[in-house]
């Protein structure tokens, strides 16, 4: 079993990553990291926040722009909640993310990918990123 990474260790990795420039801290065992991500030069730049507590699951929220405003009257795909916009980036029981993995090297790249598919969905109503919906846990990726 690989060693788990503490919020402080995750913070260090986020801080030294070249793809999630931002700022944040660990306070009372909780990591908060805010950063900007632009999935491609054609895309917008998004401001996001990651929260992580020891032995918990990282939570990713899009702070701005408000994705609901970009898609008025439409239900956002692959989110846990729409207010605030919390992204569903991985399938919890697949071990895609585990406590020994660096958020900067898993969650953050998934955010880029999610946003790239999101903008395509915004334009065409098609989600090309695949995935699973609750209730179809056995379905293929």
């Amino acid at each position, binding site marked *: 079993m690989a060693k788990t990474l503490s919020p402080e260790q995750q913070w260090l990795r986020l801080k030294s*990553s*070249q*793809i999630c420039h931002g700022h944040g801290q660990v306070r009372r065992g909780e990591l908060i990291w805010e950063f900007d*991500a*632009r*999935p*491609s*030069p*054609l*895309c*917008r*730049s998004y401001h996001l926040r990651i929260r992580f507590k020891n032995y918990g699951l990282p939570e990713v929220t899009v702070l701005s722009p408000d994705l609901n405003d*970009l898609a008025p009257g439409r*239900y956002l*795909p*692959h*989110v*846990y909640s729409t207010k605030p916009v919390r992204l*569903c*980036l*991985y*399938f*919890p029981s*697949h071990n*895609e*993310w585990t406590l020994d*993995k660096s958020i*900067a*090297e*898993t969650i*953050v*790249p*998934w955010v*880029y*990918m*999610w946003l*790239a*598919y999101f*903008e*395509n969905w*915004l*334009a*065409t109503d*098609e989600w*090309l*990123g*695949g*995935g*699973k*919906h*609750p209730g179809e846990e056995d379905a293929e*990726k």
Partner: protein
Amino acid sequence: MHRDAQVALFVTKKKQMVVELLDRLCKQIEITEAQYQSAKARYEAVGSWLSESKSPYLDRVQIYPQGSVALGTTIKPIARNEFDVDLVCHLPTLPHTSDPRAVKALIGSRLKEHTTYDGMLEEKQRCWRINYANLFHLDITPSIGNPRCHQGGELVPDRALQQWKPTNSKGYIGKFDQYAQIRPRFYQAETSFVVARADVTPLPEPTMSKPFLKRIVQVLKRHRDQLFVGSLRADLAPISVIITTLAGWAYKECATQQVHANAFDFITAVIRKMPTFIHIEMRSGRQHFTVENETTSGENFADKWNKDTRLAMAFFEWHKDALTSVESLLEIEGKDQFAKNLANKFGASKEHVREILADITNPIGQARSYGLLAVAPVIGLITSPAYGAVTVRNNTFFGR
């Protein structure tokens, strides 16, 4: 990476992607190879039918494409399904003293002898049109030799069928192709700083899937159609041959006289330069416009501007809008906003937009399935690994 270098890299990459967007748009709206082959088989059959006539006047008749099909600058019409396939029906044995009306009638009566063509035939002012519903129509314009043209030009009827006027369709195509083959020059500096830095993905040479000149003409014509087709001023739309000619000259000058930082800057420089090649002189107190066909003498593509100045004004107005529309693509953020702009300014349909964006998004999925997808600083997702980039691990997007 230094902040300035980051900004430069980002802008360069964005320009490259915008050029690729325009290239993809052109691919969506141009005639496909299958459509071209089908049109070619049909006009060759028309040519055979004409040459099999017993009439001595149709002896050695040749039929060949002119205009966008021959130039490689086709665009689908916005309001209807059929492509225009412009053809010349050259009758080399007829003297220049022939009556244009009679020559046109000669071709018409031969076509009417064919039971199939007869039912598809439509008489236009200067040509005969054979309609292939939902596919294309063949516009067949008669031409005879021009003994006074040293460049192998021809004579075609004027709109009133009263006189012959000089043109040179083959010469024009040859000249345009010659311009299109000139390769623009790009600064090495901008790309080399990228290549020299190991933490950045090198950018490929700027390129489009067709010569830049042809793509520029297609983009401009499409923008023209979007601006004028269906509007109250549809009859003022700048004609394709003027757009093509000015683009060709501007292209030649920009490609041979200047060095550009990237393809986007080159393309906008060409468009910006176009009006400077319109020759304007004062004649009896009025502006006289000339856009000369350089492959023959006596053909002024802007002839009508001198009878109706609204045409000249419409050209300048269109040109300004076209340049702004292309330049401002750089300020757009968001694939959905690009989609909106391609639709509003370049007449991209929903289906076109879907295809164009899928073309950009699908490689992400492919690279992801091979484990090659990565995120690079500044430019985001890349589909092949690069030093300094973070590989995207396997995941399954969950949630509703």
